[in-house]
């Protein structure tokens, strides 16, 4: 790179520099814009229909106005809950393994597999749940949906648990070991309590992701227009509700779909903001 002694060359370089910087700033704006546009639109179309009815009433038959999605809310809560009960412990304990003992090739393999798992399309996870739960049971069920969600939660929670445990200062481990506390007790009674806040928000993140999933529920839990809290039967969910009601030709139903979408997006955003606040040390460049 030679220093331009020619004023014209310098001016061209300066222009190119300014132009490229401008493009870069522009692209940042273009990228952030959809966030506000989508959230804003969801807000505007959804907030009108969000009322108490919405949360506590059942869907009304075609043609009747009003009604709510109580069964869908409860269904989502149940499936995310059961899915969490299955998937979260697996992920958390695997994360503990990776943090404590994972500096070997097997640990690297587990981490790799966890990352690969997180990249598998959720509809494929739905197919797997179909094959291993719906086929043997010979019917759709909320339980099958829970299994699909459990699988989806595992990679997120494994990695965040590992990261949170590794963030605990080494000096605490030393202090505990020096007191003559065995290594395993040190991990459980000294290290984990300190990492708990971070692990919890990782859990919330995984739950929020699962709560927003639609595809894997389409042919596992299927959906249910009626009230049901039985995991042994098809079960309604917030996301499938949005899908069904948005495709329907009734404006009233469309509005309800938007209301549900608004509630969903708010929950997800809140959890993400919480996660960012708690893991502020991960904020910013180069802190991965």
């Amino acid at each position: 790179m030679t220093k331009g002694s020619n004023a014209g060359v310098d001016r061209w370089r300066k222009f190119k520099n300014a132009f490229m910087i401008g493009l870069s700033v522009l692209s940042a704006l273009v990228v952030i814009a959809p966030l506000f546009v989508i959230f804003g639109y969801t807000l505007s179309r959804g907030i009108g229909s969000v009322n108490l009815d919405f949360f506590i009433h059942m869907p009304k038959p075609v043609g009747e106005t009003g009604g709510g999605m109580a069964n869908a809310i409860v269904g989502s809560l149940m499936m995310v809950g059961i899915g969490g009960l299955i998937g979260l412990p697996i992920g958390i304990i695997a994360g503990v393994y990776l943090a404590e003992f994972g500096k070997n090739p097997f640990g690297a393999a587990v981490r790799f597999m966890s990352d690969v798992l997180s990249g598998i399309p959720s509809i494929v996870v739905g197919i797997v749940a179909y094959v291993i739960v719906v086929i043997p049971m010979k019917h759709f069920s909320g339980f099958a949906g829970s299994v699909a969600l459990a699988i989806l939660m595992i990679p997120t929670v494994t990695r965040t648990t590992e990261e949170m445990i590794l963030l605990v200062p080494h000096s605490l481990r030393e202090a505990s070991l020096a007191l003559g506390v065995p290594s395993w007790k040190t991990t459980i009674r000294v290290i984990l309590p300190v990492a708990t806040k971070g692990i919890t928000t990782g859990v919330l993140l995984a739950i929020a992701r699962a709560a927003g999933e639609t595809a894997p529920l389409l042919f596992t839990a299927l959906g249910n227009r009626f009230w049901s809290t039985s995991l042994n039967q098809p079960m309604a969910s917030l996301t499938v509700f949005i899908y069904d009601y948005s495709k329907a030709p009734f404006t009233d139903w469309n509005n309800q779909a938007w209301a549900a979408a608004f509630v969903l997006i708010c929950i997800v955003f809140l959890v993400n903001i919480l996660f960012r606040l708690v893991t502020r040390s991960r904020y910013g460049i180069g802190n991965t």
Partner: protein
Amino acid sequence: MQTYLPRKTSEGSRQQTGGRDQLSEPPVVVFTQNGKGKARNVGDLVFKNLTLFFAAVVFSLVFLMAYEMYKGSNLSIAKFGWKFLWTSVWDPVRGDFGALPYVYGTIVSSLVALAIALPLSVGVAIFLAELSPDWLEKPVSFLVELLAAIPSIVYGIWGMFVLVPIVRSSIGPFLTKYLGFIPLFTGAPYGFSMLAAGIILAIMILPIITSISRDVMAAIPNAQREAALALGATKWETTKIVLSNAKSGIAGATLLGLGRALGETMAVTLVIGNISRISIHLLDPGYSMASVIANEFTEATSDLYLSSLIEVGLLLFGVTIILNAIARVIVWSVTKRFAS
């Protein structure tokens, strides 16, 4: 009470290692001589094995999934073999299935998404890694991550209610009018189109390409930037150097974004039109692998039908796994190369 053993002087020591600080091999360690002393604690053993078990569960999950999907697609694999990939017929009545239109739709919509997203993502990554001051970088990064958090169904309904009409009434006519001589930019006036799917996918994969590209660029040592600036380079010229170093990392990020686009279901299903055809026109509707599974899985009336759909899922599974694996290896090796 022990007899005190005075220290030998250095010259007379029997265990002199020649005065060197470095050995050629690590020495034998006394305390594991007979296995005693180390990890006598039963608790440690139980804890390690318990956690190991769960880690093994996570490890084997992917293999389990592959196995189950392979088992489920047995029928159609046996019947159609490889021609499943390049036949276009999809006839549940006659029991003849070929996934080409869906493969085509998935690939084209994803490529369109990449074409739109890649320059934007790299632009934002440059902005975040090179140009923006600290106080701006953090909020903007956060906003990009929020974009990733939006559930796909919300993208889908927004796409259907907002984007599709825009494509139908503005973008479509615009492209047809000014670029219509290229077949790519014409097509049906429905709005539901490959293009709409590409646009919505682009928005969805922006965050992942951006954040990984930004991380890779940030991992490049400042020494490189300083060297360039000291030679009189402008900010943009310095950035070009950083980019060339980060090239493979950005490629990895792109692959990851591509993987995400290939597997996206709800957003695509609601805007692509779900018409099984292969067309060069981006404005024509199409069908993707994930969409056909979503739409027809519960309608599958025969075992062969179901098996064909599962095989489509298996294809999706295989492709995304391979892409992900390659991408992660690339990204890992790039950031490792620059980690001091």
